């Protein structure tokens, strides 16, 4: 929108301010031109276009259970989880996104079902009072099927028809649809043994067969084992028990396979490829029969400590998570023309490790007032151990490189604005044969002719030697996209019939590429964020030192938004008030008269406050964490909502 133009205009037949000369754009008012690219009046769009998604969920479970002999039981369970999404979009013909198409209605229906069948045979018994043995055998089948179909009709006869697609009210219909399935067959065997609730041992093995892998590589075996030793059960502990009521050491190691790798990543295939009005199929996935299970090995060991009759509990653990044969869409050279320019491939190995501390305390427990508190804190260190041929995998703003945290933010070092002329300054480098930086050379990007020159500090306006900003040579790692620490602080208070919960969460050590900010500093004829007020205007008025001078339509050069740089990369640390809730439970005397077993009313606020230096809307927003491109990047991501709710909970 334009800051100096009204959104409404009572003289226009629609009641909105639409441009007379270019009716697809917001009215220009006193300006010489409409918004760049003829952007429409967004108020019209918000008030007239519709987008509604309705979602239904069906969950069901049924089981049979039988005790076959003493300690031996069998259970068979069938489960179904269905999700049915109904999507509706209406775009008004008069203005906005429906203008060119003369009105558009689109409806989509997307049912997704998962069924699951589990057979469990278990045996539990105790021998000689102290040997406790449990054996479990599990057989499990799971299948997911998701389908959708969508109809879009355009050229609507009258905007009156906007509640649903109505036969005969449109000239241009299009239909889309799709289907995908995946399945998993698993067998699991597990043995648990403990001696007198003092020594615990367990071992398991599972065999998983995944439809998304080629027949030769479909089966994976994943073992696991754990132990625990309750030291406090020993007789020598008797003297200590008043102070340290419980003490155990524990450890485990287990392997699991990653099943979330898409439906058919290994199949070389031809998919639909419509050419105008002509049906076709085209190569759409590069096959990889060699794709194998991505396995994760998790090892942890630690101890649990209970003090003063478990009034205080402390747990500490060290963990290692080793992901081997990670499956990713590894980029291929675009000039090879592989569909999507990627190959689904086991790209290498990534290891994470950290410590996890939890302290629970019943801080106050005096009569009617109670306060219990739980504090947890974890660290996380991530490192890419090896990659195919040691080759970097570079996304738009991040990189997967051996020795670095996965998808570290990768870009230029920005050195602010040249105070003499308002040009942006960056670091460039000379490197030795091994790639190590041997020399830093500053360059200024001359906005006027869009050329980079070596920056001469003694003579900052000099535009002498041309030296390009080079994406291969001059980018460096700017920080971890993953938090290096995180945790929470949960507090529950009660006083009489009132209860209060306050839950804080924190996280940090990561950086975020705030791509959204670059768009709010567009150099085309569009509105900007207030940051633009800090731009360089003259030698006397150099602004905030970070924002270069204005130049129409030179966003790409002035802001360089296709690359990460220290100008846009910000710390992602935050503390968030995740939850506050206050409740009141009615006393039993009241309930009896109402014939209820419980009655609680409450008011709850989620995500009410965030303390963060991050300038975007939400430090936990990411455009898309699951792809190579969106990791650690905030590009018009939706912030998490603040939710305030009032509720009643009734038990009959």
């Amino acid at each position: 929108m334009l800051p100096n133009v009204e959104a409404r205009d009572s003289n226009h037949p629609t009641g909105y301010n639409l441009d007379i000369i270019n009716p697809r754009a917001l009215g220009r008012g006193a300006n010489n031109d409409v918004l760049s690219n003829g952007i429409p009046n967004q108020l019209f769009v918000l008030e007239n276009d519709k987008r509604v998604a309705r979602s239904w969920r069906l969950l069901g479970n049924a089981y049979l259970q039988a005790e076959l002999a003493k300690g031996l039981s069998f259970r068979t369970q069938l489960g179904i989880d269905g999700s049915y999404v109904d999507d509706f979009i209406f775009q008004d013909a008069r203005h906005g996104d429906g203008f060119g198409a003369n009105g558009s209605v689109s409806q989509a229906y997307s049912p997704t079902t998962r069924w699951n069948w589990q057979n469990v045979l278990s045996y539990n018994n105790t021998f000689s009072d102290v040997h406790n043995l449990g054996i479990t055998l599990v057989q499990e089948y799971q299948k997911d099927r998701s389908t959708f179909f969508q109809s879009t009709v355009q050229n609507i006869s009258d905007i009156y028809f906007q509640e649903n697609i109505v036969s005969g009210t449109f000239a241009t219909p299009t239909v889309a649809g799709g289907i995908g399935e995946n399945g998993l067959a698993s067998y699991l065997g597990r043995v648990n043994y403990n001696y007198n609730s003092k020594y615990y041992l367990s071992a398991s093995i599972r065999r998983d067969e995944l439809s998304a892998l080629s027949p030769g590589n479909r089966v994976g075996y994943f073992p696991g084992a754990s132990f625990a030793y309750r030291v406090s059960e020993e007789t020598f502990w008797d003297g200590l028990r008043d102070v340290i009521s419980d003490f155990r050491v524990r450890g485990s190691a287990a392997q699991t396979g990653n099943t979330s790798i898409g439906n058919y990543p290994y199949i070389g295939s031809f998919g639909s490829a419509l050419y105008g009005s002509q049906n076709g199929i085209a190569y759409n996935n590069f096959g990889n029969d060699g794709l194998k299970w991505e396995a994760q090995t998790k090892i942890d060991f630690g101890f649990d400590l209970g003090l003063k009759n478990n009034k205080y509990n402390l747990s500490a653990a060290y963990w290692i998570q080793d992901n081997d044969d990670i499956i990713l869409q590894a980029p291929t050279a675009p000039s090879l023309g592989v569909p999507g320019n990627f190959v689904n491939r086991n790209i290498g190995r990534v290891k994470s490790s950290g410590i996890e501390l939890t302290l629970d305390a019943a801080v106050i427990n005096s009569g009617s007032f109670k306060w219990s508190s739980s504090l947890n804190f974890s660290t996380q260190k991530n490192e890419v151990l090896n990659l195919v041929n040691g080759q970097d995998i570079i996304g738009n703003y991040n990189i997967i490189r051996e020795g670095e945290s996965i998808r570290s933010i990768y870009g230029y070092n920005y050195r602010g604005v040249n105070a003499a002329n308002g040009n942006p300054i960056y670091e460039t480098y000379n490197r030795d044969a091994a790639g190590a930086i041997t020399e830093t050379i500053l360059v200024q990007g001359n906005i006027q002719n869009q050329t980079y020159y070596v920056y001469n500090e003694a003579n900052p306006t000099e535009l002498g030697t041309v030296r390009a900003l080079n994406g291969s040579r001059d980018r460096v790692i700017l920080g971890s996209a993953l938090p290096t620490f995180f945790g929470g602080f949960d507090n529950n208070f009660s006083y009489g019939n009132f209860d209060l919960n306050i839950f804080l969460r924190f996280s940090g050590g990561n950086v975020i590429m705030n791509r959204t900010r670059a768009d709010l500093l567009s150099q085309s004829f569009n509105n900007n964020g207030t940051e633009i007020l800090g731009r360089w205007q003259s030698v006397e008025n150099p602004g905030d030192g970070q924002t270069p001078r204005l130049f129409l339509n030179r966003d790409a050069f002035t802001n360089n938004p296709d690359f990460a740089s220290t100008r846009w990369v910000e710390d992602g640390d935050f503390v968030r008030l995740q939850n506050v809730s206050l409740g009141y439970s009615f006393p039993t005397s009241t309930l009896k008269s109402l014939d209820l077993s419980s009655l609680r009313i409450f008011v709850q606020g989620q995500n009410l406050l965030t303390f963060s230096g991050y300038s975007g809307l939400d430090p936990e927003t990411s455009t898309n964490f699951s792809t190579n491109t969106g990791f650690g990047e905030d590009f018009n991501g939706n912030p998490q909502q603040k939710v305030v709710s009032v509720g009643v909970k009734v038990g009959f």
Partner: protein
Amino acid sequence: MKSIKFLNLKNKAFTILSILVMISVTSCDKEVTELEPFDRITESLAFSNPARVELSMVGVYDAAQSGFYAGGQVRGYPFGAANVEQGDMRGEDMLNVAAFFAITYEANYNTASANNVFMWHTLYGVINKANIIIEGVQKAATDGVLTAAQASAYEGEARFLRALSHHELLIHFARPFGHTAGASHPGVPYRTVAVNTADRLESEVVKGRNTVAECYTLLLEDLSFAETNLPATRSGVQKVTRATKGAAIGLKNRILLHKGDWAGVIAEANKLTGYSLAATTDGVFANNSTNTESIFSIENASTDNPGVNGSLPNMYGVAPGRALIAISPIMYNNPAWLQSDLRRSSLVSEAGNGFFSNKYRRVATQEDYNPILRYAEVVLNAAEAQARSGNTGAALDLLNSVRNRAVTTPADQFTATSFASAKELIAAILFERRIEFLGEGRRWPDIHRLALDPDYNSGGIPSKVAFGNTTKASWGFGLNYENGVYKGSRTIVARPYDDFRFLWPIPLDELNTNPTLKAQQNPGY
């Protein structure tokens, strides 16, 4: 979640039952793990019968019409619309109205800017799909699925599209043919091997840029094969939207012009039969599929087109089109484009903020075809080649055959006495191309090919008008023109031929994944 506990038995019958359950379910493995995809055809089956081969062939055209832009969007890359838009926005005759094409228009591209990156991606996407077809139909012929003649016809189609795509790459990423003696300077990698196995990924990525001379040899080989094996005509919607013998000849004619092989241009033009100029100046645009002039066009349809962010009617057309590309006053005001020229009325539309092309008219359905090759181009190519070969009479006749369709007043028509020299005639032919193909993306290929021409040197990327400096009053016949030169403000500065921005850079994601090309980037980037 609801749990329904409906049985809890303790008897022997149930023991037996449960054992049976355990046994019977092992067959369930296949039910959940051996899944055939319902939404795609595995590659081993794509050439298993003639109907599927036909579908696979159409799929290469789809890649040419709607390759993927950033984030999987479709914006008509490379030949659904984008080649026209980029070809015009690299030149000065059309005017960038908003921000959409500013990077191209102002030559501010870098190794990651979307327009140039996705032209590279999608052109090579077409090329690999074409190579996969060639491999597939050859095998289908061996397997007896296709006759040898059918297989060769499909191979001809694929090689036509492969040549079209490589030539588009050459005009953006490599210097023109005449840059070095023998055209020994870097062209682009000319890919002829299907990349569909892990081994091929390794063996193809080490192949670097061919020289421009090698590229032209391969282009002409592909097109000669296509000419020999393609059908002379097709019917229905395929008449102009699928490659024919005429399309192969027409493209060869264009490529020989870029090579400066005048005799070759004339020979190809003479071979082309069955086409004629449409009766009216807008015949090609009023009737995309059944006119006599179109040789090859890319089909767009209401159900499959480059969309609101790419389609020609939206980018070029006035409201309800988005009107993001106008006719520049440099061209509109030029008095050499006569006021009486019918193209000023039939192919131009007026809006509140300037004048626009009216060649693409179907905004609501976005189904305008993209005219890739039409007969008028072959005629003007031949006119230029004849004139450059000294045959001014033949050249004048060819020029007039196109020009007099639009310039109908006899007094305004050219005669042998209109030109003092052959050079003046050639200049008139070159200017006629700018009028006739205005808004069809042909400006950049001409700037590129003429960059080193001793007489008609374009000098590189010309200076351009900035839309921000215009008002409606900036457009007017003859306005701001003195002695044939536009004197209005041209604030978008020229880039001389030796500026690195004359070429697009090889995209950064190519450099990141291709050590061979990383060492062969165009200098300056």
